[in-house]
């Protein structure tokens, strides 16, 4: 029997097409806490956002909506270049009007984490974005916290004609992270550039689902994932490029590179192309393995130990995350995690290298 104040999210984060169930790569099931909101008035997003498909699926959307105190709606007027990043809350909808530019930061917020004795302490983000024609949207996602057990992040983006979406994801912490993103390239010549960097170590579980729906003509998608797995970490990545009938002249590319540093890790990768149109090009590739012996030898010849050589790859992840962090909250979150993983000395090296101030110096 389900404990009180707990919800089971069964088989969520599923891709549009699935593989053999016995591989256990199609989805993730999570137990999440549920706080009672009886009698509360909930300020929901405009109904238009209900039609935005989100990466983790409708079960997760319903759960986050039920747990969030309020939905946050932000609109960027047509033609405006908004320099101040929009910081997403637990349930956020952003409307980027025609020709506008916006930056959205989804930084795991543990202050708002949901706590119930019967389920893991869980943080969550639900972000829905509508980018009208010619809009340019940058989305930065950072999952770094270790003071919660579980994080759930579901993103849905709809891109209009000539809209350009850039997404940078950094999954660097939290024992269990599940993240899904759907980007619907509905408008002709709309484009998605998605890069995802991850680190999973110890007994971490990381479950990622990326879906690009290419509906418009001449759309482009470039999806690049790479990361490092260590300890007894388990990672699943599902990446789907869906070239829908009518998306004539479109192209989609997906590439993943995985570095495995321990024999105890489990890496599952499922790169999918669905193609219902002939005048398109879909490509995907995956490379899974360890650092080549000759590369390790090269670094050892220059005085690094094997472990130090491997840690260079981890350091590079944090380096990139710090460079990308668009606001101080995101930067501080990455730095805190870098200190935990690499030690204070290396973390200070990183910020000095980038000409930034340390956490202590504020």
């Amino acid at each position, binding site marked *: 029997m389900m404990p009180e104040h707990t919800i089971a999210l069964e088989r969520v984060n599923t891709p549009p*097409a*699935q*593989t*053999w*169930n016995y*591989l256990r*790569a*199609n989805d993730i099931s999570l137990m999440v806490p549920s706080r009672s909101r009886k009698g509360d008035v909930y300020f929901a997003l405009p109904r238009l956002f209900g039609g935005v498909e989100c990466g983790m699926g409708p079960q997760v959307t319903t759960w986050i909506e039920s747990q969030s105190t309020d939905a946050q709606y932000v609109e960027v007027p047509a033609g405006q270049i908004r320099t101040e990043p929009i910081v997403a809350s637990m349930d956020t909808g952003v409307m980027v009007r025609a020709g506008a530019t916006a930056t959205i930061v989804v930084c795991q917020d543990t202050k708002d984490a949901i706590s119930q004795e019967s389920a893991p302490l869980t943080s969550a983000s639900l972000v829905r974005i509508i980018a009208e024609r010619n809009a340019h949207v940058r989305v930065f996602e950072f999952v770094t916290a270790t003071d919660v057990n579980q994080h759930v992040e579901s993103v849905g983006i709809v891109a209009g004609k000539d809209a350009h979406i850039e997404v940078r994801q950094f999954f660097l912490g939290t024992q269990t992270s599940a993240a899904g993103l759907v980007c619907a390239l509905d408008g002709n*010549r709309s484009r998605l550039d998605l890069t995802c960097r991850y680190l999973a170590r110890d007994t971490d579980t990381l479950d990622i689902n990326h879906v690009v729906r290419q509906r418009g*003509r*001449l759309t482009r998608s470039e999806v690049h994932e790479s990361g490092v797995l260590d300890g007894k970490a388990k990672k699943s990545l599902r990446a789907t490029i869906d*070239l829908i*009938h009518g998306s*004539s*002249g479109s192209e989609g590319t997906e590439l993943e590179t*995985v570095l*495995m*540093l*321990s*024999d105890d*890790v*489990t*890496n*599952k*990768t*499922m*790169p*999918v*192309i*669905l*193609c*219902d*149109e*002939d*005048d*398109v*090009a*879909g*490509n*995907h*590739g*995956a*490379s*899974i*393995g*360890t650092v080549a012996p000759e590369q390790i030898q090269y670094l050892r010849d220059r005085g690094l130990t094997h472990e130090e050589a491997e840690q260079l790859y981890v350091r590079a992840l944090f380096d990139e995350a710090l460079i990308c962090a668009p606001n101080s909250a995101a930067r501080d979150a990455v730095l805190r995690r870098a200190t935990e993983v690499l030690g204070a000395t290396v973390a200070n090296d990183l910020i000095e290298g980038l000409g930034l101030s340390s956490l202590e110096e504020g």
Partner: protein
Amino acid sequence: MSERTRTRTQVADVDRSLYDFTYSEEGYERYDDGLTPDIVRAISEKKDEPAWMLEMRLKALDTYHAKEMAPNWGPSIAGLDMDHISTYVSPRTKQAKDWDDVPDDIKNTFERLGIPEAERESLAGVGAQYDSEIVYHNMRDEVAKEGVVYTTIEDALHDPEWEPVVRKYFGTLIPPADHKFAALHYAVWSGGSFVYVPAGVTVEYPLQSYFRLNAEGAGQFEHTLIIVEEGADLHFIEGCSAPKYYEANLHAGAVELFVKDKARLRYSTIENWSKNMYNLNTKRARVGADAQMEWVSGSFGSHVSYLYPTTILQGDRSNCEFSGITFAGATQDLDTGCKVILNGAETTASVDTKSISKDGGCNTFRSSIVVGRHAANARASVSCQSLMLDDISRSDTIPAMDVRNATASVGHEATIGRISDDTILYLMSRGCSESEARTMVVGGFANPVSKELPLEYAVEMNNLIKLEMEGAIG
């Protein structure tokens, strides 16, 4: 960017007269449609089987009824109604060793398919199955003298020397509980081949089994069991075809391959079932140390296919190569691919597949590469290329990789696209018609697979592609 317009050529019907001919079933033994314990008992009794086999069949029937199909799986098989499928149809003839002893209509069938001719020219042995029973089986004397056994499972079960061997291996690699249609297979299996190649023996010419399903509304459930002992070498070819009916036919065979240490087995298939066929076949190989398993697979027919040959690389340094091509035309929804499980250290796997979709046909390529914890330094690569010949067809690729050893290296690449207009224009500027240019490009696309086949089968495969392409260009 300017909007582009494209013209498309007419699509005509494909001429499949080579395969689309039938003979009357009059006088044949045909069991009632549907699946009951009585039918299963009747099949077993007809074959005078040992008790353990009947027990296995009845247990499998229970499993079949108990198992559900996964709701999130592949093309629909809703059109397959087991209450309207006869699981056993047999011509009233005995198995022959000479084509002259085979009834004329059946002999004519295999003559038209070129089997006796291929046997004379390039095969070490042939088995020919017509509906549920093997009607012809023969092997060259010099191969038999080397100790090679090529017979039917039924005959092996009646041979005191081979019955224990069949019992030891049968149903162990593909257990009846593997999936719903594996269970169905074990309940009603009939026909197929048993091959045993002793240690160190190289069979110079291939052995071939050809499966022909003539009966309407019937199923074929042959079982192939091949054991290639240590250091032995065999090439086995499997061919299949059926005439087209408007009622569903079912093929749910099983192929179990045991490749012992340092042995090599090449298993080639040219599948050209008719387009009313549900081809739900299961194939699996277990490979020992330093051994090699090669699959060459051409899938052209069937209405719906679920076909994913599996290789378990159990022994250290064992190797698997899979080359496959799938051609899906009008009314076809073919879900094909392969699975490789790398358990041994320094095992290697290479998967190279091509698919072509046209006239509204649907292709789905699925693969799984699983690298186990003990597969140190394992290497695997998967390449999947899909060609779309029009905008009413569909092509999906759904690969999965599960890697649990840090020293392993797994690579995957896939591309989906169409023949570029530039390529066609280039060939046309050098004197080819559009039709010739397209056939040439598709032929070149399929060439890496067809070149893996013996010449006469490569010719058949190329003819099939040409046959299909003729319809595409109009």
